[in-house]
């Protein structure tokens, strides 16, 4: 396990390095001059050169990257071209929306998907199981922002039970109001996430239900429910945990889109605005952070899977299997 951890951590470090270099290069080589964001229409070439000099984009790429890395080590991601505020503090101010949104949606999705996946597997062949499977199939085909629009229309605009969007100006100093404004977005993301998660849980649950070891446990007198608690959850967790990491990444993606439906001041709406305004430091900051988060979660999930499944501990680390 120790050898695995070392190798996997090295792999994580390598992929973090590769992804940050790739992001950096991609943002620089793609057409479009960040200096334009600083300039008014009809600016002179001299003004443009001055703007480039101010941004440092007139330096060679390697020098730019070196500078960026030095700043990153001090947690300095540069300043927004639009607001002139440090990107780090802009991001920090918005984590209070995006992190709870993603985490709550993910937890709710897991709470829905695990029992549903098991139920569909247990009730295969009955109308009840078919109905659940059909609903889950539907959930896979629905765009997350459309679900959000429909929920807003019904619960906010028609019934007026919940706010249609926005976030309290007091932030989490008004916890009740903050939670209320996150409720619909959380449910929106969770419903869509639950659909794809249910699929994986269902498939893994079928494997467990058809397994010889579950049959052994039952043949020795364990009631189905007890056997499922003891063997089933673990048996489902082993294949599903690494998928959870990918699902968490798509939950974040869901948050990016859904924040725009509900006008939430989170990382997602910040990112979309930055794209529209060509605010490169912000784009790079948010993307670097989210990629690093996703890769780190993948590391945690792979390690967790090894802790659950002893058979994996003997084989070599790496991803070639």
């Amino acid at each position, binding site marked *: 396990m120790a050898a695995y951890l070392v190798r996997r951590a090295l792999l994580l470090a390598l*992929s973090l390095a*590769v*992804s940050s270099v790739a992001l950096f290069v991609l943002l620089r080589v*793609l057409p479009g001059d960040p200096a334009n964001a600083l300039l008014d229409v009809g600016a002179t070439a001299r003004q443009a050169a001055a703007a480039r000099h101010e941004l440092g984009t007139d330096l060679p790429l390697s020098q730019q990257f070196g500078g960026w890395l030095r700043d990153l080590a001090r947690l300095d991601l540069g300043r927004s071209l639009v607001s002139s505020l440090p990107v780090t503090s802009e991001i920090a101010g918005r984590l209070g929306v995006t992190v709870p949104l993603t985490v709550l949606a993910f937890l709710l999705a897991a709470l829905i998907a695990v029992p549903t996946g098991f139920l569909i597997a247990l009730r295969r062949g009955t109308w009840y199981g078919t109905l659940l499977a059909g609903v889950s199939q539907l959930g*896979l085909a629905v*765009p997350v922002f459309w679900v959000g629009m429909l929920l807003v229309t019904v619960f906010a605009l028609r019934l007026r039970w919940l706010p249609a969007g926005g976030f309290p100006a007091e932030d989490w100093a008004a916890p009740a109001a903050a939670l209320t404004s996150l409720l619909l977005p959380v449910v929106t993301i969770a419903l869509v996430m639950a659909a794809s998660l249910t699929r994986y849980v269902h498939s893994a649950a079928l494997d467990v239900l058809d397994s010889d070891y579950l049959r052994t446990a039952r043949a020795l007198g364990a009631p189905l429910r007890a056997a499922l608690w003891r063997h089933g959850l673990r048996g489902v967790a082993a294949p599903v945990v690494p998928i959870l990491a990918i699902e968490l990444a798509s939950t974040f*993606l869901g948050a990016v889109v859904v924040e725009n439906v509900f006008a939430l001041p989170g990382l997602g709406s910040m990112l979309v605005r930055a794209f529209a305004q060509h605010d490169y430091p912000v784009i790079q900051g948010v993307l670097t952070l989210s990629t690093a988060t996703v890769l780190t979660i993948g590391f945690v999930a792979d390690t967790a899977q090894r802790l659950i499944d002893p058979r994996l501990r003997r084989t070599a680390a790496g*991803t*070639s299997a």
Partner: protein
Amino acid sequence: MRSRALVAGCVLLGGVVAIALVSALWTPYDPGDTSGGRLEPPGPEHWLGTDRLGRDLLTQLMIGARVALSIGAGAVALGGALGLLAGLAAGFAVRWLDDVMAVALDVLIAFPTLLLAMLVIAARRGSLLSAVTAIGLAMTAVVARPARQQVKRVLAQDYVTAARTSGTSWPGIVAGHVLPNIWPALAVNLALQLGRAVLAEAGLSYLGLGPPPPNASWGHMLREAQTTVLVAPGDVVAPGLLLVLLVIGANLVADGVREVADPLLRGRW
């Protein structure tokens, strides 16, 4: 056909394809025609009503089908071709190169598709072509990773090893052994990716990063309709519904191909 899922999926997909084909020849109105009243309800003039600029909703829906399908199909063609090539290359590559590609694919898969697409689009501005490029490129890793595993599995078979050692060229191996063995899994994956691509495009357009009118897609329509949902709920429901039907169609085709190719998997989805 032996699979109900395949039949249902083909019907749904075929329906949307038919709408798209018709829209190329005829639409009730010109897409830019704003002569209708604003937000008119469905009626004899405008069967599905009009949007807030007075444009005919049915016309826009039909054009949206064309946009969704061309971006979806284009992205699948691009991503599928690149992904298959990468998968083949990794499968045939020497050990260290294969390892490098495996790690690269893992990193790419961890990187959310939509963000990658946004990056490309941010630089190239929204157009039909940049949407296809962005989504297709983002799809490459998702196609390449399983393809690589399947290629390796086929190459590990004794009879393939025998063919290789007896001097069959690698194009011969690919055409004779690899492709025939991996196409069902590839087809299933590509059908699923078609649905994903259509959803991704809708998301991009909804965020305002998609192709601009007159190639407005369903996602763009939904973005426009959001503010007027209470007055004209149909403007929100219709594009979303078509989107869902198209994606379900693609997913059902994927399930159907899987069932036909591997009857043991029946009942799983």
